[in-house]
């Protein structure tokens, strides 16, 4: 057997497309199936005397379109129905808590779980990352301001000018001292936490939006309705 670099490229392109088509499978099954297909291709190539591009293409043609193999594994893809419930859930989950504290977000959660466009994992992600949406960020921001705000004290000292210099108005140096505040690593952590709470609702929304755009799979043998 002599394999060629061009043959290797064709095979890795094919397996790459297959891997992409199988992206909705659990990782272990996805690796297993791609591995089995790779093994098949290797065995088929080993049977060739000396391979040309056409031989490798013929092997891949016999295996079939990666999309077809994905359909055999996961069932045909059907587009998701996206309606008012999904749109309202996507808006209310991040910002509902800002419009109507807690309640706005809670309505978003109810809509999320009513919708059939997302699976249970998506719904858990939407509910828990983070609970309250941006409302949690707002609460954390206020709480942070209350605990930090009273700890800084500042005083101004006049800057003594060299004799003869005409300075108007007089200049002061402002010195601020943090008293009774939290040690700086804690403060940094708190700010990082705040940033996460600010960004996370939008990441979650992006994830749910992407899940809406990816097609739903109906296992073979089950009604597509």
């Amino acid at each position, binding site marked *: 057997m002599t394999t060629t670099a061009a043959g290797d490229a064709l095979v890795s392109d094919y397996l790459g497309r297959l891997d992409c088509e199988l992206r909705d499978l659990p990782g272990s099954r996805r690796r297993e199936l791609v591995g089995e297909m790779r093994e*098949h291709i*290797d065995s088929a190539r080993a049977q060739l005397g000396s391979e040309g591009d056409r031989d490798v293409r013929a092997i891949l043609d*016999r295996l079939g379109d*990666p999309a077809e*193999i994905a359909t055999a594994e996961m069932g045909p893809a059907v587009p998701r129905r996206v309606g008012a419930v999904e749109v309202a859930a996507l808006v209310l989950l991040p910002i509902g808590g800002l419009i109507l504290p807690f309640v706005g977000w809670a309505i978003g959660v109810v809509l999320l779980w009513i919708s059939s466009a997302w699976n249970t994992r998506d719904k858990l992600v939407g509910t828990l990352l983070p609970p309250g949406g941006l409302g949690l960020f707002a609460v954390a921001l206020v709480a942070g301001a209350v605990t930090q705000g009273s700890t800084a004290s500042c005083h101004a000292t006049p800057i003594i000018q060299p004799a003869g210099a005409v300075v108007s108005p007089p200049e002061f140096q402002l010195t601020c001292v943090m008293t009774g505040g939290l040690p700086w690593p804690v403060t940094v952590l708190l700010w990082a936490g705040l940033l996460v709470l600010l960004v996370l609702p939008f990441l979650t929304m992006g994830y749910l939006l992407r899940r809406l755009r990816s097609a739903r799979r109906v296992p073979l043998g089950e009604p597509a309705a």
Partner: protein
Amino acid sequence: MRGMVPNPQARDPLIAQMRRGALEYCVLALLGERERYGFDLVRTLGGMDGLVTSEGTIYPLLGRLRREGLVDTVWRESESGPPRRYYSLGPRGRAALDVFNEEWQRFRDAVDRILTGEAT
């Protein structure tokens, strides 16, 4: 090409469904003879005219049969290269195959009689 279904009508969903249903039992029947290496099994099925359109779709079928407990797999050393996964028929697969065998004979005879006009 050998093993490929040439005409587009063969992609009719009903025919595809019928083929898929029968293919499952063809896998069980081949494994009923002896345990087989996945590649040999797939090439044997793919070499039959009109049975499989894309050989690659047999691997998802094998995965499902394994999850349903109809076939078993075992890793065996090979003279060349890494160990290979062999498939064999389990007791439940044997039982399912026996039921299908009987049903298929009756079904095939009935359809044949109608198609050839013997029934009237």
